């Protein structure tokens, strides 16, 4: 589904990704771990199409198609979803209206009619239930005054509504208490299928206890320096990142 080949990317002339290779197949869950500043969020933003990042070299292929020239919204229409580490507050736009607009614009891009209001409401109700979101919450301004946990739950709610092919969860666990973590993870697990894939970016093992990865990669200094299975995450939890740094340095 997603194939990243020798990806180099920079922001303001500073190279952050220095040759990433990654292949994610449908039905898989990949975790990307690594110390602060290793390039995890940059990788997520580059896949989602943030314009400030310059791809210097390499390719990002989605279902075999190079998506580098596509705008962020076009990637979204192709099924890429990024759950933000810091979701943006947009005063004056309600959660419901935002998600309606996002869904209908995606449908428009695919040549489909707007989703009938009745179906939309039904879907909103179901997905809100799945994430244990209060209906009142949906008429509030997007992310404005939301707690950290509410913001993250709202991100996964949007993911549930948009039903992406490739979901990238950027530190979705940060700011979540254990109950919220369980709700969010449960939501993600319910949305998982053999046709979609999830990339979980995290510092910690704890989210991976709930969303179990098929593969774990360690990103350090703009490169994937180690890949393994879920046991690698446990090892990192126990030993920290220093031994990786040493291995790479050596």
């Amino acid at each position, binding site marked *: 589904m997603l194939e990243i080949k020798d990806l180099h990317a920079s922001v303001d002339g500073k190279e952050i990704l220095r040759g990433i290779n990654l292949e994610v197949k449908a039905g898989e869950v990949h975790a990307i771990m690594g110390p602060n500043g290793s390039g995890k969020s940059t990788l997520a933003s580059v896949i989602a199409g943030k314009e400030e990042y310059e791809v210097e070299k390499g390719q990002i292929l989605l279902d075999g198609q190079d998506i580098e020239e596509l705008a962020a919204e076009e990637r979204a229409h192709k099924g890429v979803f990024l759950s933000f580490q810091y979701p943006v507050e*947009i005063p004056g*736009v309600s959660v419901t209206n935002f998600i309606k607009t996002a869904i209908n614009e995606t449908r428009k891009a695919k040549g489909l009619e707007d989703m009938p209001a009745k179906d939309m409401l039904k879907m909103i109700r179901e997905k809100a239930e799945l994430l244990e979101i209060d209906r009142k919450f949906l008429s509030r301004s997007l992310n404005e005054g939301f707690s950290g946990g509410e913001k993250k739950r709202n991100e996964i709610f949007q993911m549930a509504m948009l039903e992406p092919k490739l979901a990238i969860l950027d530190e979705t666990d940060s700011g979540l208490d254990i109950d919220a973590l369980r709700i969010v993870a449960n939501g993600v697990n319910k949305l998982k299928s053999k046709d979609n894939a999830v990339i979980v970016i995290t510092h910690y093992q704890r989210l991976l206890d709930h969303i179990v990865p098929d593969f774990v990669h360690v990103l350090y200094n703009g490169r994937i320096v180690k890949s393994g299975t879920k046991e690698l995450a446990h090892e990192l939890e126990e030993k920290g990142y220093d031994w990786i740094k040493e291995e790479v340095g050596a």
Partner: protein
Amino acid sequence: MELKDKLVSSFMAFENTVDVDSPVHDVRNEAIKIFEDKGFPSKRDEAWKYTSLNSVLKHDYSVFPKQEKAIEYSDVKKYFIHDIDSYKIIFIDGKYCSHLSQTTHDGIDVCLMSSALSKPKYQLIIENYFNKVATKDGLSSLNTAFSKEGAYIHIPKNKLVAKPIQIVHFSTGNESALMLQPRNLIVVDENSHVQIIERHQSLTDNPVLTNSVTEIFANKRAIVDYYKIQNDKESASLIDSTSVNQKRESHVSMHTFTFGGKLTRNNLNFYQNGERMDSTLNGVTIIGNKQHVDHNTLVHHIEPNCESHQDYKGIFADQSTGVFNGKVLVNKEAQKTNAFQSNNNILLSDKASINSKPQLEIFADDVKCSHGCTIGQLDESAMFYMRSRGIPEKEAKALLMFAFSNNVLDSVKIPEIKQRITKIIANKLGVNIGFDL
């Protein structure tokens, strides 16, 4: 000939068309003298520092338009809020158009200034109210000197006017360049409530300059909701001077929506002559190209226990320029005044600009007054957030702009007007929006 000289010399010709023996004509005579003396404002005047009329005054305007050109309702329907039942006072090239209008004398007077100025039954109201609150600057005096036609609305006490009143001035382009000077008088007596919508619309690209003066009197416990829809062609300029005199416990709200026009200047003055009242001044301005919009407001708190709320939003694209000059004056006697003012602006281009100047002059010591002004750009991180969810750039921009203007749009009390304004904004931004905010 300079426009000023042309106007002054045409005053004699104008006198042939009105009753020179009426007391109103003394007022006109006085006014033409003031105009002769003061003339048009220039950038040397503090209140016109950021707005130059030079490019507007250079045309050779017809001051007395020739015969009325007929227009059909179907041609101009889109300029009305047509999905609601309303009274209509319609003018074409400055002349009253009866077949498009729907006036009334049934308990209330919704009719013409020309009748009010000439018929005895209106004499008392005219004597008490005409030119009593309008400012005496050069431009308003010019309008007063040539005052003859416009809307006349008198709502006697205890009337809830069920239908809004639409005042629309069309210009047809029959003249190569046309100057219009409509004069409106609105008197709302005790306990009465009225909603008014005003629009100036030119139908061709010939230059039009409108110098409009409106006087509004809201007597004890009256409620007046007034909406100005300014979405004219970029060949048309508007100088609108509206003055509001409020009596105790009255509520007056003014919404000014400015999306069109070459140059638009709104002078909006509120005088609070009484206690326990409030005044609301809201505005949304969205312009581009080389358009210029100048909002000049004054709220004069004269007596205690009153409120005023001002909220002006501006979005400026391309090389457009804006001015907000908002003055709040609180007299020494006006204790317990609550006066709020905010002016928020978004500049969409490096070449657009806004001059925002809040002025507070407070002579009372027990008041709550605040003002705030912001100038910024569209939030890039919000743009990426929305686009990453599949909302295209143009729609994402529009969504942010709607959100930015939303609290003003929300304060519109007639849903059809809110819908129409939303549509005008969507057209202006080139989006077919599927969201309702």
